[in-house]
């Protein structure tokens, strides 16, 4: 049997999606809210069908449940899937971050045990890095894992965890050697989110919704196979994971359903009889231009990756550009909506205002704009690093987060 060509694969994906995938998210879908788990069963069912049809884990090796195909097939599928709203939100984190990290750094046993059910949506994953005292400076994290025989005892608090309320497993960073400088004493573990001592609490944000969680670990036992990669080498794996996160976030902008996108705001300008205003016209044209450039840059990165040139730190350019586009769109929406921004009378206007309120979060999540600029300056342009007074000091002698000075 000869191998399917990329175009044949694309045609098969197009046909399957047309038959099986919804064009838009169902109205009233509240699976974004951390309190809600109602959509999860339906998402699992869809993911299983998507997997069985051969469209999940496209580039992952076949021995771990993947399709063993190339970036070309992945890009073809993503391009076809863009016209649909696939109910697979619960799996984006696992397949985008912990999954690739286990593939790259995990043991053979871990890959065989965890990757196939992750792909088929039978087990959902979350990622546990940020802490109240460790955001931009994630490496100053204080959650600890202390050895007990060939197991570990995990204690501490994580924050900004998407999907923790319905996750089965998490990839967690914890400090395993506080006597080493901060980057050197961190390890990455697999934690069973159903284990005793794990508490998940929804985290309400500025929009009033709770799309994230706080997670508390109180003497949670991690078994001997929980360590991803080597002990005290967790930071290397974390860097791999954060890089994947930035590319994922940077390419999420510009969707047709985005309430702050050109299409939606143009329609609103017409409805509100403001499209003829010369200032509004210019603002909308500029929004179109910026939105298209961000989308084109994401496409350029994909095409370069396909041609064998991985994006590396330029994923940070995509992330920063996406966040800045959001901030600009808020100003355009102000001109389009006028005083409706102050008080909304329809659901459509309310959706725009909620997005306007949500935008500042995009400039923080996945690494703040300022951190992205550091990465671009240092890793793309080769500028000198910050002096980093904390790089060589043992962690237990550092002041971190909002701790008072040590005596």
């Amino acid at each position, binding site marked *: 049997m000869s191998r399917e060509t990329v175009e044949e694969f694309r045609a098969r994906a197009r046909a399957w999606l047309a038959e099986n995938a919804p064009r838009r998210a169902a109205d009233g879908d509240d699976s974004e809210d951390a309190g809600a788990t109602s959509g999860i069963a339906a998402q699992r069912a869809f993911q299983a069908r998507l997997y069985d049809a051969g469209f999940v884990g496209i580039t992952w090796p076949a021995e771990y449940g993947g399709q063993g195909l190339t970036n070309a097939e992945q890009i073809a599928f993503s391009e076809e899937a863009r016209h649909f709203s696939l109910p697979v939100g619960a799996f984006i984190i696992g397949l985008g971050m912990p999954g690739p990290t286990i593939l790259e750094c995990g043991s053979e046993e871990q890959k065989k045990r965890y990757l196939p059910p992750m792909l088929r949506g039978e087990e959902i994953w979350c990622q546990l890095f940020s802490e109240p005292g460790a955001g931009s400076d994630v490496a100053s994290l204080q959650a600890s894992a202390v050895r007990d025989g060939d197991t570990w005892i995990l204690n501490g608090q994580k924050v900004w965890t998407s999907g923790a309320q319905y996750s089965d497993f998490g990839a967690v960073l914890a400090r395993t050697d506080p006597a080493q400088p901060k980057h050197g004493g961190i390890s990455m573990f697999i934690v069973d989110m159903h284990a005793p001592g794990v508490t998940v609490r929804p985290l309400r944000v500025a929009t009033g919704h709770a799309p994230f969680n706080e997670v508390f670990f109180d003497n949670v036992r991690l078994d001997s196979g929980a360590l991803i990669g080597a002990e005290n080498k967790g930071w290397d794996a974390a860097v791999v994971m954060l890089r994947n996160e930035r590319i994922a976030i940077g390419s999420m902008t510009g969707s047709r359903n985005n309430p702050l996108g050109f299409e939606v705001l143009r329609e609103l300008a017409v409805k509100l009889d403001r499209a003829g205003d010369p200032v509004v016209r*210019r603002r909308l*044209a500029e929004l179109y231009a910026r939105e*298209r*450039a961000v989308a*084109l840059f994401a496409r350029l990165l994909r095409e370069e990756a396909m041609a064998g040139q991985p994006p590396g730190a330029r994923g940070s350019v995509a992330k920063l550009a996406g966040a800045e586009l959001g901030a600009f769109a808020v100003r355009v929406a102000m001109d389009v909506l006028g005083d409706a921004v102050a008080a909304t009378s329809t659901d459509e206007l309310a959706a725009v205002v909620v997005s306007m309120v949500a935008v500042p979060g995009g400039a923080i999540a996945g690494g703040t704009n300022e951190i*992205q600029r550091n990465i*671009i*300056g240092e890793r793309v342009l*080769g500028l*000198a690093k910050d002096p980093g007074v904390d790089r060589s000091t043992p962690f237990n002698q550092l002041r971190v987060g909002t701790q008072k000075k040590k005596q």
Partner: protein
Amino acid sequence: MSLVLNAEEESLRDSVRRFVADRSPIPAIRKLIDSGQAYDGAVWQQLAGQLGLASLLIPEEYGGSGAGHSAMTVALTELGAGLVPSPLLASGVLAAGLLLRLGDEQASQDLLPGIASGELVATVALGGAGHPAVAAGGTATEPRLTGEVSPVLNGAEADVLLIGVHGGAVYRVDGDAAGLTREPLTSTDHTRALARIVLDDTPARPLAGDGPAALAAAADLANLALAAEQCGAMAACLAMTSEYARLRVAFGQPIGAFQAVKHRLADMETAWELARAALRAAATSADADPDRFSADASVARLLASGPYFTAAADTIQLHGGIGFTWEHDAHLYYKNALAGQVLLGTPGDQLDRLATTLGV
């Protein structure tokens, strides 16, 4: 078509880059500026003859290579990076593009082979936002033009001027025509020659074809070509300024370690990446997706012109005092960016035009 350059385009980029470094480095351009010449004739001959840059948009039947817009933007990017003065934009892009769109067979046969070889320099009097202040008169057999257009790219040097008049028709006026006055202007950008064209009952030949559509197409080509030059120039500013931030030490460390410097450079890098992606998309739609071209060319110009001006201003600022001296190249880029923002349509004109294209 791909946004990534193919092997042929990469090789064209490399040859133009080498040519600019060898034959038209900035010290040579400074001498040229001091001499008062619009461009170096020998450099132009080689750009057109040896590298074939004036022939890229022109089909083989008219003596061109028909390589296309993508190749042209690759070449212009490198010329823009080096601020190389040449009539390529006026002649090989705008005049060639206008003639091809008009489709006046006789005029194409008369002019395009010369434009392709570089032996003939033509220009287009586009004038500000597409409101030419030139009126056609005379008789059907002896048409005459009267009026004024300014600023016109290479208007004082061109052998042939293509002029849009009230009502949208396009006329050809020869450089030695009676009643034609060409006054070189004091150009803010030392590397771009501009002139005022005054026509006083000047003999002209009307060109067949859809004038308004062809003039609009020339305006789109102007956006594409200026965006290409500006992307190249932005890359030059970025390279120059990041190198300086790596080398220059203050307060005991390279200045690039300070976030006030680092973050501005990161913004410059981000702006350049976006402009470059938009440019590549516009170049590929010019060749393969004509319905998208006008909007894509506007997007490319908007993403290049304004951000390039910011990059050029930041280049001076991040260099500090040395960047404000005459000897430093930063002011050449700053002036090029300043004039490039408003040439053939201000940013406001561009936004209005894009809004119209998008149906807003």
